[in-house]
């Protein structure tokens, strides 16, 4: 019996359990109520859904909107765009599905009170770019959360879900989840007929550029702790494209967004000597990727590649030329409000360094890598496609169901669907929820059951870091150095260092190879052993301990996938030094992995890519 075995256990029974109350989770919760009028719908969130997930601080644009009502774009156009940006590899069936529904989500946001900017001449939503519309989105998340709260039977804030539970009566079927309340320390057993994982992607698996106090100023939120991946991986769900990490070109230090600057304000980049540099690297890039360099718009990773080569050639810093655009007071206001609406930290950096873009062209940088599934990247779980048109190889049940029965996903969780952003993630949550309700309807009386042995052993595991600390702390006078335990921040920094040095982080200009990856896996293996000895001083540190466990599991997956794909598909995101060229003969395919928690082994395989003919 452990020290914390007397901790109180709460049982929460539901039909639909939504894990994570960000954009995807709020969409899932809302939609589940529409289809499941009499069902018990529970949303569980480790923070507070009013301000949780990647949209917590707001957004100044909705980056996925077709505008079908004005014939601006059709879903097929978005599929072509995402495919092109991801160098040919996206789940076009899933992407089309999001694109055909996304406008209805956005129209509801407006009806609910989200202030949309409009073009004064046409009366349409004001376009930032072909896919982006501009909003005053400071309260985007509170508005979406209000709708979700109205729809949910119960919302549980401040509960960190650590593991999924499997059914004891049927192989490969989900039965719920466990977690702990980060305020009270109580243990929670959620029993559910269907589970939708709508948790966050992964920041802080690679060493960030900022050090010390600034390490939280990552591009993606520091609370995006890879639960989107760790939860499904642990129960054997197949994952796809986990090697497809993203690197962002952003304003230096604050990682302020550049989308509105490029697209709406028409600013542009130049090297330290005022020269255009992207064309300098055209032949170099073409030698790596062939015709992909000629596609329009130029894929995000290839623009990164030119940026990196120019920096390595010693002609940095690269700057955004803002001085011209910012002479227009309207554009200046848009430029500032863009940050205040979604990346306040960039405004702080500029204020502190006296950078007024009207007088100074600000520096850009490339970020540390992130693993997520909703931006210009598409890591995540391998999911069943829409019933009406997905090919057989993409369809084994219900829309957005993973390879585990009853386990659905949306947002960062689902792989292969780049460029869904906030509105597409919300929409994917809606798609998953309708499918989950249909799954429950078809289930009849054959409901899953959780095993007491399972949740009791998980309970012991979940609270072990508190026990490790309590025991180990008595050995030492004080301080942070113990021979018996490591603290979550210490484990996190070791993880970030391993990923940076061996799996293509900033320290190596995103370069790796098989020997480096092999060594990286060895070091991740010992870190995994050491995390059995994590020490948590209090419940806050216990949350950090489990976030780290989730990040480690995702990192292992990223490393195995990176090893498996023997080509450099996305130069500018990462490079395989031993396979520097894109190789469409062997690698125009998805990579899939499956983790076996009993053996600790990973199995990798290829899966075919289907394209919409055009």
């Amino acid at each position, binding site marked *: 019996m452990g020290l914390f075995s007397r901790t109180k256990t709460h049982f929460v029974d539901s039909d639909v359990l939504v894990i994570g109350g960000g954009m995807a989770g709020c969409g899932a919760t809302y939609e589940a109520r*529409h289809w499941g009028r009499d069902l018990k719908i529970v949303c569980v969130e480790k923070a507070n859904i009013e301000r949780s997930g990647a949209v917590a601080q707001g957004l100044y644009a909705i980056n996925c909107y077709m505008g079908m009502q004005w014939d601006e774009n059709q879903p097929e156009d978005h599929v072509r765009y995402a495919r092109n940006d991801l160098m040919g590899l996206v789940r076009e069936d899933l992407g089309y599905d999001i694109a055909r529904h996304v406008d209805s989500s956005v129209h509801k946001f407006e009806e609910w009170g989200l202030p949309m900017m409009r073009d004064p001449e046409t009366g349409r939503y004001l376009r930032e770019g072909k896919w982006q519309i501009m909003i005053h989105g400071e309260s985007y998340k509170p508005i979406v959360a209000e709708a979700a709260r109205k729809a949910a039977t119960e919302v549980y804030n401040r509960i960190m879900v650590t593991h999924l539970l499997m059914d004891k009566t049927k192989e490969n079927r989900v039965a719920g989840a466990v977690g702990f309340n980060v305020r009270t320390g109580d243990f929670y057993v959620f029993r559910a007929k269907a589970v939708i994982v709508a948790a966050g992607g992964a920041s802080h698996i690679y060493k960030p550029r900022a050090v010390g106090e600034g390490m939280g100023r990552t591009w993606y939120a520091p609370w995006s702790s890879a639960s989107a991946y760790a939860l499904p991986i642990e129960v054997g769900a197949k994952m796809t494209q986990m090697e497809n990490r993203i690197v962002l070109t952003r304003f230096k230090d604050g990682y302020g967004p550049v989308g509105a600057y490029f697209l709406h304000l028409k600013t542009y980049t130049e090297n330290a000597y005022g020269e255009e540099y992207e064309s300098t690297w055209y032949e170099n890039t073409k030698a790596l990727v062939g015709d992909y360099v000629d596609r329009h718009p130029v894929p995000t990773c290839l623009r990164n590649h030119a940026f990196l080569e120019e920096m390595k050639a010693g002609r940095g810093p690269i700057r955004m030329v803002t001085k011209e655009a910012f002479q227009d007071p309207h554009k200046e206001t848009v430029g500032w409000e863009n940050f205040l609406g979604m990346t306040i930290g960039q405004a702080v950096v500029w204020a502190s*360094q006296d950078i007024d873009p009207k007088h100074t062209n600000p520096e850009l940088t490339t970020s540390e890598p992130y693993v997520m599934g909703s931006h210009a990247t598409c890591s995540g779980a391998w999911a069943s496609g829409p019933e009406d048109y997905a090919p057989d190889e993409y369809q084994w049940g219900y829309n957005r169901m993973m390879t585990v029965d009853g386990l659905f996903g949306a947002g960062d969780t689902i792989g292969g669907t780049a460029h869904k952003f906030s509105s597409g993630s919300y929409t994917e949550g809606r798609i998953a929820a309708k499918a989950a309700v249909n799954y429950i*309807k078809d289930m009849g009386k054959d409901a899953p059951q959780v095993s007491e042995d399972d949740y009791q052993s998980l309970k012991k595991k979940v609270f072990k870091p508190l026990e490790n600390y309590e025991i180990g702390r008595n050995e030492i006078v004080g301080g942070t150095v113990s021979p018996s335990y490591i603290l979550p921040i210490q484990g996190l920094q070791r993880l970030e260092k391993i990923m940076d040095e061996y799996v293509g982080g900033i320290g190596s200009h995103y370069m790796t190879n098989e020997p480096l990856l092999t060594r990286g896996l060895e070091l991740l293996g010992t870190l995994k052993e050491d995390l059995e000895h994590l020490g948590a001083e209090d419940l806050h540190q216990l949350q950090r301990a489990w976030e780290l466990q989730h990040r480690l599991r995702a990192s292992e997956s990223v490393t195995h996938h990176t090893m498996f794909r023997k080509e450099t598909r996305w130069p500018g995101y990462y490079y395989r030094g031993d396979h520097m060229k894109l190789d469409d003969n062997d690698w125009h395919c998805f990579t899939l992995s499956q983790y076996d928690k009993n053996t600790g082994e990973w199995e990798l395989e290829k899966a075919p890519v289907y394209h919409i003919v055009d």
Partner: protein
Amino acid sequence: MPTFVYMTRCDGCGHCVDICPSDIMHIDKTYRRAINIEPNMCWECYSCVKACPQNAIDARGYADFAPLGHSVRVLREPEKGTISWKVKFRNGHEKNFVSPIRTTDWGTIPSPAELPPPSEDDFKSQELAHEPDALNIKGGLPALTPDQLKKGVV
């Protein structure tokens, strides 16, 4: 800018503790006021700053790259539906911005349970709640046929 709390303004109400997405705003046991316990996990999202009824929370740029002497202050007024910003540079220059945050009253979004219940056919269709009406298009929800997806084309 991790956030920090002014001793004389904070009354320990805990709004910031309740809202912080990173779980780093806690109540100090000695002073019974809020404190940022983990500045290196602060995203500068300002959720706590906006939520503080006493305007007791501010941010100071990250010490590893932000020189002192700046401030970015915010006043969020949900009842008015606006947010106001004051950006002060190290050199003393100031910029002010005001934006709308919501066009409807808070709490007025209806539950989807208030919609007419879906029919059995609706469950089998690909349409989601509010569709096809909310798409604002003629011809209904767009669709593909299975033969439009072709394997392995480069």
